[in-house]
């Protein structure tokens, strides 16, 4: 496995065509490295590591391709939803806060304008007259509403004229900071204070100058009942709360849940903020709240709307938990399926590879056999001639000695020659077998006797049977008529079956071979052994290619080939077996080759 990293120089794609092509080529090199070297090609790896490696790669690839987009989407979705939800809920609140803030500003502005108007429209001397002041106050109360008193303060900070319910005439304000502020700024709006009959009030003061350039102040007190109705007009849901606070965080109107007028508000306004903003905070009861702060323009008041976050974000929480649920279930499913699928896939690939290997080996084996067969044929044929020579010459020697005169060693001589001739006979048998083996490759029909064929095959196997102490009992039909069939193929059939029979016998046993004329068209051969037998499950599979119970060295093709041959010859093959008792193969061979 190549672990070297391919460094790719990426050329900037300029207008020049050459550079463009170069960049393309480099990219394709990278691509090739990615797909072929790293992830999917496993031919270059040793067999043992190949399959886990392949499986791991498939798993990684599949997980990456499925999980990355899924996670991406989940993240984007939740983000989108969250933000859109927030804006959907928050925007109306925002708008509401702004609108209400404007209403407050308008209200204060109206009152301030009124006082300013009065201060401008009337001269100092006119306002010093209490009757005038009272009349003005009456008109203000009727026409505008909300005014409680009206007072005139001279440049020495003395209240010189007063209309209203309090005893303020003659009072001095030089110690009051609001007075100085009013003198400095020209107008002044106070915070809420507890006033007449313990209702909350605010004071508005406006400065004017006499013709002599002496500053005087007109001061009016407003009751804040209107504030409450402005807030009520917001129409918030019962769980929400809205109120006015000043710069120090003191309630200017009563809060539904958090305190009365002039108490401290538990929420602190966002610092340095001059517009409308939204913050999240925890209230004294520990609930998560959403706060909208709207700063009034002309005074350090802020309108505050408090809404429980849970109300807003309820649907978000539901979605979030649903999404998590679905996401994790999906991830779990994907991982499960990936692991299982890749396991199956790789196992199938491995099995297919192994089968292919086996098939190749078998093919190789067959080809080797056929070349060996040809070789054998060649050798056998070559040997026949010298063998014939030995045979004739030894025969001649025998004739000459036999017909000739006696001499002292005559008997011995004849004996020796006979031994030679017997050995030639053995050689003849051996070459005959060799050629029989070779002839397996060609299909040809000839008249033959099944019994002979069986005997020939037994000749091949007698050594092995002897070694394994297997007794071969023959029950061959006498005078079994000749049939027309392929000797070589029949050799192979009986060889396969008998080899299996011998192999199934562990220590010692017997094999019974029976032949008979089944009917006009067919002869039967049965080969019965008392070996280990086969289970029903095994019986189902024995004619399948590559099925073998000889783990490791069987090719699993012997019986399929046998079956194929018998089918080709037009015969039939049946098996009966009992585990522990033995197996019987029954083969039916047609007397004449079936045409078509």
């Amino acid at each position: 496995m190549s672990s070297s990293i391919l460094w790719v120089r990426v050329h900037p794609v300029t207008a020049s065509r050459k550079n463009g092509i170069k960049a393309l080529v480099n990219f394709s090199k990278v691509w090739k490295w990615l797909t072929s070297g790293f992830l999917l090609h496993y031919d270059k790896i040793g067999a043992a590591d190949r399959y886990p490696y392949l499986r791991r790669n498939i798993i990684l690839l599949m997980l990456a391709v499925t999980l990355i987009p899924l996670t991406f989407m989940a993240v984007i979705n939740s983000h989108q939803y969250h933000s859109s939800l927030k804006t959907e809920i928050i925007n109306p609140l925002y708008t509401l806060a702004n609108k209400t803030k404007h209403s407050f500003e308008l209200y204060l502005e109206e009152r301030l304008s009124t006082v300013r108007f009065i201060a401008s429209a009337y001269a100092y001397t006119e306002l010093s007259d209490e009757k005038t002041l009272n009349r003005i106050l009456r008109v203000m109360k009727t026409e505008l509403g909300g005014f409680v008193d009206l007072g005139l303060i001279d440049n020495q900070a003395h209240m010189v004229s007063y209309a209203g319910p309090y005893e303020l005439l003659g009072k001095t304000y030089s110690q009051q900071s609001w007075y100085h502020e009013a003198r400095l700024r020209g107008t002044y709006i106070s915070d809420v204070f507890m006033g007449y009959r313990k209702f909350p009030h605010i004071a508005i003061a406006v400065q004017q100058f006499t013709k002599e350039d002496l500053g005087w102040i007109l001061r009016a007190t407003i009751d804040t009942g209107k504030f409450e109705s402005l807030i009520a007009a917001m129409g918030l849901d019962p769980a929400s709360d809205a109120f006015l606070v000043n710069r120090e965080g003191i309630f200017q109107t009563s809060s539904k849940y958090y305190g009365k007028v002039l108490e401290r508000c538990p929420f602190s306004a966002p610092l340095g903020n001059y517009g409308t903003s939204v913050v999240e905070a925890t209230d004294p009861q520990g609930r998560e709240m959403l706060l909208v702060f709207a700063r009034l323009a002309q005074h350090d008041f802020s309108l505050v709307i408090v809404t429980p976050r849970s109300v807003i974000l309820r649907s978000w929480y539901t979605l979030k938990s649903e999404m998590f649920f679905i996401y994790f279930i999906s991830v779990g499913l994907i991982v499960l399926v990936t692991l299982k699928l890749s396991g199956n896939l790789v196992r199938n690939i491995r099995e297919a590879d192994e089968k292919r290997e086996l098939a190749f080996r078998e093919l190789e084996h067959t080809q080797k056999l056929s070349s060996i067969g040809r070789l054998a044929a060649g050798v056998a044929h070559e040997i026949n001639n010298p063998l014939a020579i030995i045979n004739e010459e030894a025969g001649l020697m025998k004739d000459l000695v036999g017909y000739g005169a006696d001499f002292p060693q005559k008997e011995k001589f004849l004996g020796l020659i006979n031994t030679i001739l017997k050995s030639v006979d053995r050689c003849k048998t051996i070459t005959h077998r060799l050629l029989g083996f070779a002839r397996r490759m060609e299909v040809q029909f000839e008249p033959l006797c099944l019994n002979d064929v069986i005997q020939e095959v037994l000749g091949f196997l007698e050594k092995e049977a002897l070694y394994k102490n297997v007794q071969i009992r023959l029950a061959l039909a006498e005078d079994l008529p000749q049939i027309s069939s392929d000797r070589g193929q029949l050799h192979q059939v009986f060889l396969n079956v008998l080899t299996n029979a011998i192999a199934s016998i562990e220590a010692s046993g017997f094999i019974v071979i029976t032949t008979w004329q089944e009917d006009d068209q067919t002869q039967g051969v049965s080969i019965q052994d008392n070996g280990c037998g086969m289970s029903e499950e095994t019986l189902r599979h024995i004619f399948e290619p590559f099925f073998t119970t000889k783990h490791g060295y069987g090719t699993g093709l012997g019986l399929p080939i046998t079956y194929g041959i018998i089918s080709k010859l037009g015969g039939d093959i049946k098996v009966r077996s009992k585990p522990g008792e033995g197996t019987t193969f029954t083969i039916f061979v047609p007397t004449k080759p079936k045409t078509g």
Partner: protein
Amino acid sequence: MLLVDDEEDFVSALAERLHLRGIDARIATDGEAALEAMEIFLPQVVVLDVMMPGLGGAEVLKRIKAMHPELPVILLTGHGSIREGAAGLTHGADGYLVKPIDIEELIDKMRGALSGD
């Protein structure tokens, strides 16, 4: 009879054995020589090896049968050429033997062929 085989040792030993049994056998070591010899003297039986260099056994058989259709020809074949032997039968040979041969079998076949079947 005429024995035709390219292995001289074999064919001369066989001829001698036949002589010892009272059968007159001449030999030829290739097809050409055999055909020439047959122009000089006509044998009663020809024993012919199918695998011979030069004019092969099959060709010789054909020519003999062309010239003397009544003349019995027995083919000798090594195991590798049984097919040739069997083919030879269809071309008119009167029998075949597989090498190495049993001389008694040869004599039997010869007598059989001569007794005219």
